[in-house]
């Protein structure tokens, strides 16, 4: 079976500035890939290219063997690629339940009743079942992010991209979100996670990717990555982080 995500020789420019430089990356079904790197290294930009929230200028990105590009098929591809955002981006005018059920009703054309029943199940799964009828503004950051994860799962995507899902959270709420993500990983969901949470990378990742200045510097299993990094820049990065 071909990989869920294939990135081949992909580069992205902002005007003259090259944000991503010749990225090559495959993500297999069921794999959990964690992308680490200093801020500004292009990790968020990379995953935002995978569902074309950002355009790329060179190379190819394919999801389920379909090239990611503007056109009629883009919406279909985006259904296969869920995304969880740093700032949750819940729909503030809708209840938690409606947030989760909206896209399945509109895009997957599920009957409202079925979509809501499934939404309730997913909310139960992320421990938010009791809050289904609240509005996002009534929830803590951690709770909002768990709802956002349920909302993404409601589309049953083949892969979920996480764009620094805990970076906007108060420290005491990081754990609850990471727990939900860990459960997802265990249940076999394919995930690409941009994060600064080293513990999560170590425990949950099948593969860790280190990026700097728009390039992939190193890819490895978490064990090798954290205990015997190959590249000097990776070592410098880990040194800086672990000494904080």
């Amino acid at each position, binding site marked *: 079976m071909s990989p869920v995500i294939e990135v081949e020789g992909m580069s992205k420019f902002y005007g003259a500035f090259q944000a991503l430089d010749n990225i090559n990356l495959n993500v297999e079904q069921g794999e959990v890939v964690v992308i680490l790197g200093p801020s500004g290294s292009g990790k968020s930009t990379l995953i935002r290219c995978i569902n074309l929230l950002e355009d790329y200028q060179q190379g190819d990105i394919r999801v389920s063997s379909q090239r990611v590009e503007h056109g009629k098929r883009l919406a279909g591809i985006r259904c296969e690629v869920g995304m969880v955002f740093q700032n949750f981006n819940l729909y503030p005018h809708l209840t938690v339940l409606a947030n989760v059920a909206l896209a399945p009703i*509109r895009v997957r054309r599920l009957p409202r009743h079925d979509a809501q029943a499934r939404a309730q199940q997913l909310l139960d799964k992320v421990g938010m079942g009791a809050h289904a009828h609240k509005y996002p503004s009534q929830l803590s950051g951690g709770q909002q992010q768990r709802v956002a994860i349920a909302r993404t799962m409601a589309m049953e995507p083949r892969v979920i991209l996480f764009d620094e899902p805990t970076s906007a959270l108060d420290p005491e709420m990081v754990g609850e979100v990471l727990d939900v993500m860990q459960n997802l990983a265990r249940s076999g969901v394919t995930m690409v996670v941009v994060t600064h949470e080293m513990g999560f990378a170590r425990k949950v990742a099948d593969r860790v990717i280190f990026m700097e200045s728009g390039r992939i510097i190193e890819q490895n299993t978490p064990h090798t990555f954290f205990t015997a990094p190959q590249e000097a820049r990776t070592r410098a990065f880990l040194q800086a982080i672990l000494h904080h």
Partner: protein
Amino acid sequence: MDLLQTFFNWGVFTDALPLMLRGLGVTVVLGVVSIVLGLVGGLLLAMVRLYAFAPLRWLSRVYIDVLRSIPLLVLLVLIYYALPFVGIRLSSFAAAAAALSLVSCAYSAEIFRSGIEAIPRGQFEAAASQGMGFFNTMRDVILPQAMRIVLPPMTSNCINVMKDTALASVVAMPDLLKQATQAQALAANPTPLVGAAVMYLLLLLPLVQMVSWIERRNTAGRTGA
């Protein structure tokens, strides 16, 4: 005593009342038609202004700027007195409704645009990342939030349209003001004019109050929620 007889003459008022009420009806119908057309057209115009192909976007901008610059009375007179020279002869109601809604479109479009632009980019991205198309994103995600933001300025705009209906009396539209001035001429007494002013106030004062009420509620909601 003289003053009362002059400005608040009950006999003159009751004589003029039936015609004035008919005029009030015309004013309300004209206002509502123009408001509805202005809102629908304004929303479409805002969409074109924001999301259409470049030439259309540019055209919509020209339209909005021109219609916001031209005095409503001038536009009304053009439509009613100039268009017949090219064979377009509109009734006074159609001419007034056209002028009012064409201008209201331009203002509403700018109000809608400011509301839509106030929605954070993350909302568009969340909808896009779930495969939602332009129409669904607008209807289910963006516009409901934008409506809440634009409700006070939009209500103000509607009040302006309702007030500006009085200009239609210039093109012989039998609206409230026209009926009142006619009654005043007939009775040689200004009481109908005073009556008309009071009717305009009764019609619009509650709407003005509603705007400030919505604004107060919105500020309270922002800090409370």
